[in-house]
């Protein structure tokens, strides 16, 4: 029994040493998934002229995909919301979806004391909820009001979207779908509704539809004055 125990501990130790030497780079890991690449920068181009006022299919799809309640009280979690804007001078109305802008220089990442807020190599800004202590400083720092704090215990989470009370969360750009090579739930829903206002793609690939479109038509980033270089671009603002 003693030798058996030693063997287990020894093997476990060897494995752990292997894990410690090359975190994330073990062969079996690579066989099962590729790390997010810095050659990619995920982003979106939102054509506000195609976004229909009053339509919230993207919001519903997001809630369904990520297991959010869909409540709209002041303490409820909202990853994406529909904004109805009115130009104060001309009165022109604009409708658009608003969510985490996946900045290149995200203020939430700068201020997070535990580095729980982070940016993946492919530009997706996320919260590592294992590290988040719930201080909410990121919510104070975000210029887009993109983040929500989970004010209540959560039940029946989606298996690939873990979430829990006492941590901060926001749009993940449907990272679980992106890692499977799919598009985001909101973009899919918008296309399904026939609007095609949300174009998701790789900003770093000059041949991608999003890159070609951004090159061809005028688009803006929200609060571009802050110099955060968001991954989300808007047309028709």
């Amino acid at each position, binding site marked *: *029994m003693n030798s*058996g*125990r030693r063997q*287990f*501990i020894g*093997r*476990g130790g060897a*494995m*752990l040493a292997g*894990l410690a030497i090359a*975190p*994330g780079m073990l062969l*079996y*890991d*690579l066989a*099962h*998934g*590729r*790390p*997010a690449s810095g050659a990619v920068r995920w982003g979106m181009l939102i054509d506000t002229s195609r976004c229909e006022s009053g339509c919230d299919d993207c919001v519903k799809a997001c*809630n*369904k995909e*990520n*297991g*959010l*309640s*869909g*409540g709209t009280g002041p303490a409820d979690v909202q990853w994406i919301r529909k904004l109805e804007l009115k130009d104060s001078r001309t009165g022109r109305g604009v409708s658009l979806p608003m969510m985490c802008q996946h900045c290149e220089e995200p203020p939430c990442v700068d201020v997070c004391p535990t580095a729980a807020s*982070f940016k*993946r*190599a*492919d530009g997706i800004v*996320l919260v*590592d*909820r*294992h590290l988040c202590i719930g201080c909410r400083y990121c919510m104070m720092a975000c210029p887009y009001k993109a983040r929500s704090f989970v004010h*209540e*215990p*959560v*039940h*029946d*989470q*989606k*298996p*690939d979207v*873990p*979430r*829990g*009370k006492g*941590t901060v969360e926001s749009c993940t750009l449907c*990272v679980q779908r*992106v*890692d499977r090579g799919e598009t985001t739930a909101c973009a899919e829903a918008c296309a399904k509704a026939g609007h095609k206002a949300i174009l998701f793609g790789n900003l770093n690939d000059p041949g991608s539809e999003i890159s070609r479109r951004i090159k061809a038509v005028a688009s803006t980033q929200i609060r571009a004055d802050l110099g955060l270089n968001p991954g989300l671009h808007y047309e028709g603002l």
Partner: protein
Amino acid sequence: MKLILALVFLASGVAFADVSVPQLDIGKGGHCVDDPKFMRLNHGDLLKHQRTITVHQGIRGKYSLAACVDCHASRKNNSVIGTDRNFCQGCHVYAAVKLDCFECHSSRPTTVGMTEGGK
């Protein structure tokens, strides 16, 4: 803690076979992603390592918690927690190790029993 756990398991299997070891409902079971003895000892570290590379690098590897749940959720309550016979809870209660994965992670398998809307 690892050592104590190891001792508990080995002792329960060999030296103190008459002690009431947890009667676990292993669900669907089948071939584990690794040697079960190795998993018993190291699943905590493996999951922690996996979680870090999954969250930060998007590498969704073989030691995924969701995969554990998929195979080991009880067919009775469709979960790995809930009763002291459920796969995760049974052992953690026996070993007196706090289990807090499932405050945030789903304790139900991906394929069945998915509820929509959450909360």
